[in-house]
C-alpha cells in the first residue's frame, strides 16, 4: 500500500461495476481524507448507491481497488466492517422491533457486552430525543423519529468512517439542524463522514470536499467554493422558443463567452465576465439574427449550476472561448 494511502479514510481507484443491464460504475475514483466530511453528489442512477455498497463490503466490484481505513474491502471485509457505520437507505433497522430492541441487538452484534449494549442504546436514545419512545415499535415512528434512530444505529460503536445517505430528507428545519449538528459533532470527535445526497444545500452545509458523480464516474471534485469558482462568476442564460435554435444561438453569443458554452434541456448557458455588456451585446446580436427567445437572463451560479454544467446531457464542444 502506498504510504500516502494510510492517511486516507477511503481510497477507491478505477472501480467498475456492471449489472446485467447497464454499467453502474465506470472508472470510479475517490479519495477521502481522515477526519473530513466528503459529499458524494449525483442524481438518481449516477451510481452513488452502488459506490457505497462496494465501499461498505455489501457488493463486490468487477474491477478496481477500494481501501477503507487502509483495508481492502474485497479481501479484508471483516476489518472494514469493524470500522464503519451505515445510516440511511443502505441498511435498515427492524420495523417489528422497538427502537431500544434494535439498538441493543445491533450493539451486541457489534461486539458490545450485554451490559455495555444496553447502556449505549439508552445513551443514544437519550441523545436523539427518543428516550420516551424507545419502547415503541419502529413501524409506529414518525419520519423524523425514524431518521434519528437510523443515525443512532450507525453510531453504536463510534465508527471511524460513517456512510450517511440523505440524512435529512423529510425532516423539518429543526430536525435538519439537529442531524447536521450531530454529524458535525462526530467529525469533531475524529470520525470521517461520507455523505451521499442529491441535495446540494446539504453538501454545501456539511461537506469539506465534494465529488460530483455522473454516469458512474466522478466528473468534478473540490471544495464547494472551488467548484463554484470553476463555473465562473456569472452566467448568461438564453432560452430559445424553438429548441433547435440552441446551437445557432451558441455560435452567435460565443464572442461574449468567458468559458465553454453549455446547452442542456434547450437552455444555453454562457459563462460571462461582464454582466451588462454581455447581456446587451448578446441581446442585440440575437435580435439582428432574428432568433425568437423565450427568456434571457443573467444568473449567479450556485452549486446547482455547477452540477447541471458538469452532468448535463448535452454540452457544446469546441465553441471558442
Amino acid at each position, binding site marked *: 500500500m502506498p504510504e500516502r494511502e494510510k492517511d486516507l479514510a477511503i481510497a477507491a481507484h478505477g472501480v467498475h461495476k456492471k449489472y446485467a443491464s447497464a454499467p453502474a460504475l465506470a472508472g470510479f475514483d475517490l479519495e477521502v481524507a481522515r477526519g473530513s466530511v466528503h459529499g458524494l453528489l449525483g442524481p438518481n442512477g449516477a451510481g452513488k448507491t452502488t459506490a457505497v455498497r462496494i465501499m461498505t463490503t455489501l457488493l463486490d466490484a468487477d474491477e478496481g481497488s477500494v481501501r477503507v481505513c487502509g483495508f481492502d474491502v474485497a479481501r479484508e471485509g471483516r476489518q472494514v466492517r469493524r470500522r464503519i457505520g451505515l445510516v440511511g437507505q443502505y*441498511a435498515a433497522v427492524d420495523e417489528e422491533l422497538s427502537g431500544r430492541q434494535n439498538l441493543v441487538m445491533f450493539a451486541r452484534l457489534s*461486539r458490545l457486552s450485554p451490559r455495555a449494549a444496553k447502556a449505549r442504546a439508552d445513551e443514544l436514545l437519550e441523545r436523539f430525543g427518543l428516550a420516551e419512545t424507545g419502547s415503541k415499535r419502529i413501524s409506529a415512528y414518525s419520519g423524523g423519529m425514524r431518521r434519528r434512530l437510523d443515525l443512532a444505529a450507525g453510531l453504536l460503536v463510534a465508527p471511524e468512517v460513517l456512510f450517511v445517505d440523505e440524512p435529512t430528507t423529510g425532516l423539518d428545519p429543526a430536525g435538519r439542524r439537529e442531524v447536521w449538528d450531530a454529524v458535525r459533532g462526530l467529525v469533531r470527535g475524529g470520525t470521517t463522514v461520507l455523505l451521499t445526497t442529491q441535495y446540494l444545500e446539504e453538501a454545501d452545509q456539511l461537506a469539506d470536499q465534494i465529488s460530483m458523480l455522473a454516469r458512474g464516474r466522478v466528473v468534478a471534485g473540490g471544495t464547494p467554493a472551488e467548484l463554484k469558482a470553476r463555473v465562473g462568476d456569472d452566467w448568461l442564460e438564453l432560452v430559445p422558443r424553438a429548441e433547435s435554435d440552441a446551437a445557432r444561438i451558441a455560435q452567435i453569443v460565443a464572442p461574449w463567452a468567458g468559458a465553454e458554452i453549455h446547452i442542456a434541456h434547450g437552455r444555453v448557458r454562457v459563462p460571462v465576465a461582464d454582466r451588462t455588456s454581455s447581456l446587451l451585446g448578446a441581446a442585440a446580436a440575437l435580435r439582428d439574427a432574428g432568433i425568437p427567445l423565450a427568456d434571457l437572463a443573467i444568473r449567479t451560479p450556485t452549486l446547482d449550476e455547477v452540477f447541471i454544467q458538469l452532468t448535463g446531457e448535452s454540452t457544446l464542444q469546441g465553441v471558442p472561448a
Partner: protein
Amino acid sequence: MTTYSDSLADRFRWTISDTLTITRRELQHWRNRPGVLAFNWLFPVLMMAMFTGLLGGAIDVATEGSYVDFVMPGVFAMTMFFGLEGTMLAVSTDAASGVTDRFRSLPMSGLAVVAGRCVADMVNSVIGLAVVVMAGLLFGWRPDASGPAIAAAFALLLLLRFAVLWIGVFLGLKTKNKEAVSAVQVIVWPLLFLSSVFVDTATMPGWLGTIAAANPLSATATATRDLFGNPSLGGGSWFAENAFALAVAMPVLLVIVFLPLSAFTYRHLRR
C-alpha cells in the same frame, strides 16, 4: 473502545453469541406480535378439525377405523411443511427491507444470521407441533407404540421441518417481493393434497397415486403412522414399503441440496 481478536476460539464464541442474539430477535418479534404467532400455531388445528369433523365421516369407511388415527400423523407432517412459508416470508422480508444488508455490514458472523433463524424456526415448530398434538389427543387420536418409536416419529417430523427450513431460506433469499411469497403460499396447497397426508394414495388414480406416494410429505406421514402404530394403508406400493428409509433420506437429500444453495446465494448477494 471494543477490542477484537480473530482467534478461532473467539470466532466460535462470537458465532454462538450472535446466533443467540438473532434468535432473541425472533422471540421479540413473537412477543411484539402474539396474534400472528397464535394464528400460525392454530391454523393446523383448524385444518385438522375441518378434516376430521367435516370429511372424516365420509373417509372413515375407507380406513375401516378411526379417521382421526389415520389423519393425525399427516396433520403433523403438514404442520412441519407449513413452516416453509414462515421461514421464506421472514427471510424475504429481511432481504427486501435492508435488514439483511445491515447484518452484512456488521462485523458479525454470517453463519449466525441463518443459524439464529434456524433455531428460532425450529423452536416455533416444536411449539406448533405440541399444540396440534394436544388438539389431536383431545379429538381422540391415540398413538399405540413404545416410547422410543414415538420419539423416532417426532424426530422424523422435525427432520422434515429442518429440510423445508433450508428450502425456505433459499426461496426467501431469491424472492424479494411479496408476490413471489404469495405464489409459494398457493403452491404449497397442491403439494399438500398430492400426498398421503389426508387420504390413502391407493384411492387416487394410479399414476397420480404414484406421484403422491413419492412426495416427501407422504414418506414422513406414512413412516410416522407406522411408528405411532396408527393405520397407514397404502400397503403394497414401493414407497409405502420403504417409508421409513425415505422419510430419512428425502429430507436429508433436500438439506444436502438447499443448505449449500442457501449459503451460496447468501454469499452472492455481493454480486
